[in-house]
């Protein structure tokens, strides 16, 4: 009872902050609403007993990536409205297409997992000893080794690309 109450109020906050991120006029305010949104998502992770994910959510997203957003927003100073207004009709069309794809993907995943109730997520055993930080470490280096290494390669390539773009004399 209490848990669902907390969950639904959190969900309302997350949606509300999400809407504010795209509707706020001031870019810095948008970024701040994004931080609030991330913090609420971290609380949802805590409710799901995924404290490692919650802390990483705060550290990486709220503490790292959004600080960089703020840095860029302050550097380019968007206080003045751009001279040529962006083509809003084309943007909204694109937005509708993208959200339709997203909706289809999410409902496909939900229906797929509903059709197979005994999937891995539902029947995951309770953490035997140590809690989920150790579990995540074990899983990353055993069952999910290849995806993990691929993801780190991807990040490395992105980093090299960024350095290449920033250098003047290549």
């Amino acid at each position, binding site marked *: 009872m209490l848990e669902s109450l907390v969950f639904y109020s959190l969900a309302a906050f997350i949606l509300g902050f999400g809407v504010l991120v795209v509707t706020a006029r001031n870019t810095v305010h948008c970024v701040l609403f994004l931080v609030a949104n991330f913090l609420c998502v971290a609380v949802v992770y805590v409710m799901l007993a995924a404290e490692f994910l919650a802390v990483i959510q705060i550290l990486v997203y*709220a503490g790292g990536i959004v600080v960089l957003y*703020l840095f860029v927003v302050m550097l380019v100073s968007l206080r003045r409205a751009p001279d040529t207004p962006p083509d809003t009709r084309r943007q909204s069309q694109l937005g509708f297409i993208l959200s339709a794809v997203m909706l289809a993907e999410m409902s496909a995943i939900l229906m797929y997992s509903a059709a197979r109730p005994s999937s891995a997520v539902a029947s995951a055993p309770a953490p035997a000893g140590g809690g989920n930080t150790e579990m995540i470490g074990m899983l990353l280096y055993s069952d999910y080794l290849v995806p993990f290494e691929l993801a780190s390669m991807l990040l490395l390539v992105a980093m090299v690309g960024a350095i290449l773009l920033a250098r003047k004399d290549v």
Partner: protein
Amino acid sequence: MIETYVLPVLKILVLLNAVLVSVTFMTLLERKVIAWVQVRLGPMRVGPHGALQPIADAIKLLLKEDITPARADRWVFTLAPIVSMVPALIAFAVIPFDRDVTFFGYRVPLFIADINVGLLYIVSVTAIGVYGIILAGYASNSKFPLLAGLRASAQLISYEIAITMMLVSIVIMAGTLSMVGIVDAQYRAGVWYVFLQPVAFVILFIGGLAETNRAPFDLPEAEQELTGGFHTEYSGMRFALFFLAEYANMIVVSAVAATLFFGGWLRPFPNVPALWLLGYVPGWVWFLLKTFVFLYIFIWIRATLPRYRYDQLMRLGWKVLIPLAIANLVVTAILKVLL
């Protein structure tokens, strides 16, 4: 009932008040120590040897007019001091002062929470504190605070990388992220981690100076260049909140250094039975003593070293500390597998 609700609330109340009082008196300590270094007396008028000076300062700041600049971003301007103060205070939730003490027949653990990801929690919560400075710089709508906000964000992100890398080698040594677990691991090893990880300790200390915006890395509030930096436009109690947050952050860094590298509540030489006399001093006294030594060194460094230039600061962070932290991590991992 008492164990789940009353006790944690009591501990939070006691800890919050203790932190706020010690933060207030840190200002006096800072002024006194710097005065002694410069062969002055420091505050002497209010109370014996100026002992009541912080209280006089607090009353003055509370009574001062609270000004919001005309074209400031009003909401963000109000939010910024809160955002810098709150993370500094909630970071204390996982710092272990002692394992447990017996109190009216109850065995009370002297920490609020021993969570499984304690160290990561402190890192992430202090990362949120960066927003206070950046937002203060932005919301003041004035050029000096904006410059300070940009400096602060670049500085804090750079040094956060080195510190986090360094913490990984400590986690490899201890095999846990829990603060209590790390002290226990040092007890089992029979040696403080500062002797096993001296490089990591140096990185933590330099990074801690940079993360708390203390001299010689106090570029976000460089008086000579930025007229006070990010808090130029702040006055009254909101200005004081930034200062209190800085001192609270100093205490957090000192407490983390004492826990990770100097055995937290363990007495010196915890595995030498010949020094059993030291065991009569309670653990939390050892912990507070170690924390105090770090705070003193923080102030001492401020009184001794001149400020870094901005490019020197960035070079130290990216070209010295981060490679050093990565090398330390690799060496620690190899030794952990071999030994």
